[in-house]
């Protein structure tokens, strides 16, 4: 499929602020091992600052810019065209050292007693992908999708206790469950064509997981938010990391005394 993504982020301020510094992770994954190809990417930022780029530890493309002058809004529009479904991903980044990062607890992923109990039924002897699929299904069955009950700082332990949340929270639960059973798993930030929420709306970016199936199989995408479970050509990957904190779409700092309001809109459309 050839998909077009328009991702608009707007920060508005109640009074002028200054010295904005912002990093965005919005470039679709275009690494050699990826099953998708990004044919174009543009970033339009109000006030037209110079945009710089680097690749982070986990191979994600990061763009960053700053605005010194006083301003009362920052608007970021990322437009990309991605061809998906180009076969299965290659497993070139299965380095043992990196795998350790995806096997341990992290900022949002905790091995709390609740997660131990949640995974108690699963046999660690099962092949990793089967185990991953079973966990994915169990999360999809037992957790309730409900925006607004969690926030961006909710850890897997908090979500476990609530039993509900959004895609980001489901992904963190999945990571905690897999890793506590010694399956390397990583957080993926991206988009889903045809509605990223179970109800089919397109209101924001999406998040899911990749499970490491071993040296031959490599990484396999699974989505605990949707009952289809497996990642297919409707999915566009931006990047991956230990958890949300490694791949936030936008993060930044500013100076001044003002209230900030954020609005985000995402549109994914099919070109062919």
């Amino acid at each position, binding site marked *: 499929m050839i998909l077009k993504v328009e991702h608009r982020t707007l920060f508005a301020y109640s009074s002028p602020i200054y*010295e904005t*510094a912002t*990093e965005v992770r919005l470039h679709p994954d275009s690494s050699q091992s990826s099953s998708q190809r990004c044919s174009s990417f543009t970033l339009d930022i109000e006030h037209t*600052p*110079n945009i*710089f780029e*680097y*690749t*982070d*530890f*986990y191979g994600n493309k990061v763009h*960053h810019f*700053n605005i*010194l002058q006083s301003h009362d809004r920052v608007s970021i529009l990322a437009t990309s065209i991605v061809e998906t479904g180009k076969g299965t991903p290659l497993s070139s980044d299965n380095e*043992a*050292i990196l795998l*350790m*990062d995806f096997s*341990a607890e992290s900022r949002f992923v905790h091995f709390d007693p609740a997660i131990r109990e949640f995974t108690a039924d699963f046999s660690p002897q099962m092949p990793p992908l089967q185990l991953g699929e079973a966990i994915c299904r169990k999360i999809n069955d037992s957790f309730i999708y409900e925006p607004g009950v969690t926030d961006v700082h909710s850890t897997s332990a908090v979500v476990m206790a609530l039993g509900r949340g959004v895609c980001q929270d489901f992904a963190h639960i999945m990571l905690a469950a897999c890793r506590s059973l010694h399956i390397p798993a990583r957080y993926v930030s991206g988009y889903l064509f045809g509605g990223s929420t179970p109800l089919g709306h397109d209101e924001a970016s999406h998040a899911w997981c990749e499970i490491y199936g071993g040296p031959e199989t490599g990484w396999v995408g699974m989505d605990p938010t949707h009952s289809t479970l497996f990642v297919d050509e409707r999915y566009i990957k931006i990047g991956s990391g230990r958890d949300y904190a490694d791949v936030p779409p936008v*993060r*930044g*700092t500013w100076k001044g005394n003002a209230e900030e309001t954020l609005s985000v809109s995402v549109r994914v459309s099919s070109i062919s």
Partner: protein
Amino acid sequence: MKRFFDGYHPEASRFFDEVMTGEGSPRPHYDKLLSRFGQFSVDDIKARREMVNIYFRNQGITFTVYGLEEGIERLFPFDLIPRVLPSEEWALIEKGLTQRITALNLFLHDIYHTQNILRDRVIPPELVLGSSHFRREFVGVTPPRGIYIHITGSDIIRDGEGNYLVLEDNLRTPSGVSYMLQNRQAMKRAFPVLFEKYKVRPVENYPQELLRTLQEVAPQGRSNPNVVVLTPGIYNSAYFEHSFLARQMGVELTEGRDLVVNDNMVYARTTRGLERVDVIYRRIDDDYIDPLMFRPDSKLGVAGLINAYRKGNVTLANAIGTGIADDKVIYSFVPKIIRYYLGEDPILQNVPTWLPGNPSDLKYILEHLDTLVVKAANESGGYGMLIGPESTTEEQERFAELIVKNPRNYIAQPTISLSRHPSLFNDSELYGCHIDLRPYVLNGKTTTIVPGGLTRVALKRGSLVVNSSQGGGSKDTWVVDE
């Protein structure tokens, strides 16, 4: 005539006494010092003490003690009797530290690039990945000249036989060098005659050497680089030192809010507009230095600084992520690090260290908590520590629990019999106090160590804690050419 040192008995047993041999006669390099002090009356000493105190007070040399009432500023306790180091012993320390810094620098370069030492399993990779001081943000970035550690203040102690051992490599933002310089100034005023008798090697050129080192590591193509010191501000306990070093080097003392990053360049805000900054001698920890990259709640840092650094437009001294090499767990691997990168045997030995992560070590530690010293792996300044022989059973039990719960976070070492040196505190009574030594290593194009350092003294009789934050004091350190 009663000699000044007559009343001093080193109680030689498991401690090495710096001044007296086991037989009770002075070591040769202390002869002149003993005979000079022998001429002093109690009043002479009092007069000199007063001279020194006035000097320190006028310089505003105070130290903020945390944990007591807010903002208590005290004079840093100072012992009038200097420590004397013969030049051949200094030569060994100099060689040993140079070797160590060279190896640790190669280690950091490796860790932040190909990670061969982890692939070769010389160090278990999980120890590095699991350290809060390993900065993933910094992997693949090469600082100018490949130098990570520009300024070090290693802690050196002596065991019962008098061997020099490295206790800690302080590779982040070691402090105390201003005391080394001020102690020397104070001693010169109080004991001019003694300086004539000894050929004391000078330390006064440290600020110039520091500035030269910082200029040498400026980003490429920046002739006449603009160097600044970056401080957390006046409420930091070492603010005096930050201000002192800036003044001595003749560079600006900046706070985070004085600097701004624009298009990956760092600028200082001046009355004439923005002025490019090339080298930052930063005294702010990694965690607080860039709210965009690390702790977002930091008000001390400069947003975007790390991206400017990554692009090679500014040099930070020390580099980001050096803390991984002075993690106390990694410390125990330094002898292996030296052999791995240099193919040499370590000149200065480590203090034996047990890691609770190894089951056999853990068993040993838990059985010997009453004799060991347990330290948190990522704390400095003597905080988060259990000194076995001085601890209560409850404290030992609390630490046992902590260690079992989080083995990666602790190390254990034998209670080291730090060497002792006679010290003079109420100006009439001499008694042996435990001391260590912190020389300051500068690492630019070449490695420079000004001869001497800060000798820290545990003032409390019998105490082994020399940290200034825990009520320790200091004395001047003389490297003498005979």
